[in-house]
């Protein structure tokens, strides 16, 4: 097993040896911020490319092929285009809120991104109420969307924002219940410890039935949280043209776009952390040589492998299902998913109390 902490603590020691303690801390903060942002953008670029290719495969197309080998530079061309586009300001819009909204969305997304444990010791934010913080950070993204719709002074945006608000606040509940179920199973809220506990068996196997139910509900609710089809009502292009970000252009629109993709990554990342063991390898009891081989694969590969598998599943949803209608969304949440989630939480608690877990 690798432990990334060796590298981080080496850097820490080095910095402390060449500069005073306070300056070292500040330097570390800057380093971490830069690394996080670079990783954030890098993953966004990978995801956008992946989405194009996956969607093309589902639709019997080739996807981008012209720019660079196998279309590899297409995303860079797109990002460059978006960067040089004019940011248009709208008459009669609430200018401060209008400008603030995209930053709120992207900030919430980056904060949540920092909670993800990529490998043992490779995690930016990790403290004893990690899951709690993660939920809080991911929740205020909806504020940015509401503000975007409200301040644009556009009726379509307004409807889109209202839809988004209703949807995200509802589905937050299911996500919370699923996380709570897993917290009950692990007995801790610290993300690194949750992963640590899965070394001898992923929670989806340990928690058997209630964990599987929670996993499925989490995937559905997580999909709704990211505003992607079949839950893309806030930006339903055939109804509301582009919903809450109709009036945004250039990099302001880019922020919404990137945040949406990264939210997908985050949802998949959290799912793989809570249910599929994060960076822990797959062990099968009794197959010692197999387990030893699994150990050679680095934890970050395990984490990204699981995450991208889940992203692929979510993209499969996205490109297969039609869009729900606005009244189906709360119906699904309040009539089905919340009651099932509550019962599931109860079952999980009973399982843990009676020690019916593997």
């Amino acid at each position, binding site marked *: 097993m690798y432990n990334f902490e060796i590298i981080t603590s080496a850097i820490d020691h080095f910095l402390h040896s060449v500069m005073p303690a306070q300056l070292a801390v500040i330097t570390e903060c800057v380093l971490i911020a830069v690394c996080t942002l670079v990783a954030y953008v890098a993953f966004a670029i990978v995801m956008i490319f992946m989405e194009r290719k996956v*969607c093309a495969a*589902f*639709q*019997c*197309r080739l996807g981008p092929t012209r720019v660079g080998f196998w279309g590899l530079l297409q995303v860079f061309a797109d990002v460059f285009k978006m960067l040089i586009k004019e940011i248009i300001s709208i008459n009669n819009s609430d200018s401060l809120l209008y400008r603030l909204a995209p930053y709120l969305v992207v900030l919430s997304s980056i904060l949540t991104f920092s909670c993800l444990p990529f490998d043992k010791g490779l995690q930016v934010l990790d403290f004893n109420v990690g899951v709690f913080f993660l939920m809080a950070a991911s929740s205020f993204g909806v504020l940015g969307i509401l503000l975007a719709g409200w301040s644009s002074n556009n*009726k*379509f945006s307004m*409807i889109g924002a209202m839809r988004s608000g209703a949807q995200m606040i509802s589905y937050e509940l299911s996500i919370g219940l699923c996380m709570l179920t897993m917290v009950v199973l692990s007995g801790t809220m610290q993300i690194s410890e949750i992963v640590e506990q899965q070394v001898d068996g992923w929670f989806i196997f340990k928690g058997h039935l209630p964990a599987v139910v929670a996993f499925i509900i989490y995937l559905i609710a997580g999909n709704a949280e990211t505003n992607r*089809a*079949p839950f*893309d*009502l806030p930006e*339903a*292009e*055939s*109804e*509301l*043209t582009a919903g809450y970000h109709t009036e945004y252009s250039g990099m302001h629109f880019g922020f919404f776009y990137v945040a949406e993709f990264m939210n997908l990554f985050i949802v998949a990342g959290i799912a793989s952390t809570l249910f599929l063991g994060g960076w822990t390898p797959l062990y099968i009891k009794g197959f010692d040589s197999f387990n030893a081989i699994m150990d050679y694969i680095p934890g970050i590969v395990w984490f990204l492998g699981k995450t991208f598998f889940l992203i692929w599943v979510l993209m499969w949803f996205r*490109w*297969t*299902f*039609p*869009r*729900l*209608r*606005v*009244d*189906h969304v709360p119906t699904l949440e309040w009539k089905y998913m919340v009651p099932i989630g509550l019962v599931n939480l109860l079952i999980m608690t009973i399982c843990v109390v009676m020690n019916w877990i593997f």
Partner: protein
Amino acid sequence: MNPIFIDIKEFPQRMQEYKDLKGMDFLRELIGMDWGEEGLGVIYILENSDTHENLEIAIKTTDREHPTLPTVCHLWSVAELYEREVYDFFGIHFTDHPDMRRLFLRNDWVGYPLRKDYDESEAINPVRMESEITEDVQREYEIKEEAELKKINAQTNRISGDQYVINIGPQHPATHGVLRFRLALEGEEIRKIDIHCGYIHRGIEKMSEKLTYPQILGLTDRLDYLSAHQNRHALCMCIEKAMGIEVTDRTQYIRTIMDELQRIDSHLLFLSCAAMDLGAITAFIYGFRDREKILDIFEEVTGGRLIQNYNTIGGVQADITPGFAKKVKEYCEYQKSKIKEYNDVFTNNIITQLRMKGVGRITLDDAISYGCTGGTGRASGWACDVRKRHPYAIYDKVEFKEIIYKRGDCYDRFKVRIDEIKESIHIIEQIIDNIPEGDYKVKTKPIIRIPEGQYTAAVEGSRGEFGVFIESHGEKSPYRIKFRPMGLPLIAAMHKILKGTKIADLIAIGATLDYVIPDIDR
């Protein structure tokens, strides 16, 4: 065709009788006419939806200053929009009509373009640089004792100021063209709807009065571009009927095959766009992938993909290519295997069914009253297929089922089209191997003149009955030509079915009604 002229005073009662006693419940056409000195008038073509018996009625008034005729929109709901069109182009006021506004042109348009004494000079109607003010006031007219017009109810608001009004269109991804719905919303629910047409009105009927018949043929493909073959077929049939030309069997076979291929093409586009509107983008691509194969066949035979210009007076432009039959058969086999794929990926999806089942119901009575022909009418249980009602070409020689569903909701409208693809393939398979030898075109005179009189012809277009009416005075060009739009009745029915539904339902209903805007606007 010889319409019966009825006196204005007797008119309302006689029409009521025709509808109640003779069962003439389907208003096929309502044609505004300007007979010059003899006055302005309207021709009604009625049909009994059970016996398919037709009746032509005409009415006219000599008053050119304030022409006023009684409305029939309480008898046939579709007349509401038809009469607005006549008002727009001929300036005929219909008394007791609930909403006498212009339908296609701007409110500040001067004159009535289809009148024979219309002044076309640009000084009267310059290109207006300011945007049109939407009139929220509807006017009703009644005749005062001195036969003068009186405005009543001039202050009835259609959509009042304090409602949350949004415009779906004229540029909107789900209107499939430039159509504008003005919606008054309460939350997501639609309270009132006002439909504005005319954004792509090209005045084809007006243009046709100056063009020769072969020239008009070129315009028909541009009405409903997804039933280009059928449109042109109808006009050719009408002219051939009028001139007494007998086309060869080979022509009839080719025309039938092409019509059916065009129908499959249109239905494929329908179901992919319906999927797209509901958010299923993959199903959209599947439909378009398969449609491409039909377009390839069209391109090989006619040279055109969307607009083929294939039918011509007395036959078709060019003979079919040697490999045509083989290609079409291959395509039929291929398409049959793909229908299951559409059902798997889209139709049988639970979300699709939730979105479509029970949404936007049109009852049988409404369908007939609004004249919603085609797949929409058949989904409501109305056997309205022109191929069965008034067979043309070789449709009486082939065996095929008329697809009829009962509920009339979006889901049924969708299913009708999928089943019709299978039926069209069935028709093609019956005749593709037996195309008789012979000329593909009979010789016609170099200059085509139609003998004096009124002629009609109708075909089953891709989305309903497409009719052509020609009044000829023996000239090279028609005195009046009228195309029966397939989409206008569907738009008229939207008024009724949209109330109380949600914005998302508007999209589903619009997608499954399957209108094409250039056909509505002409």
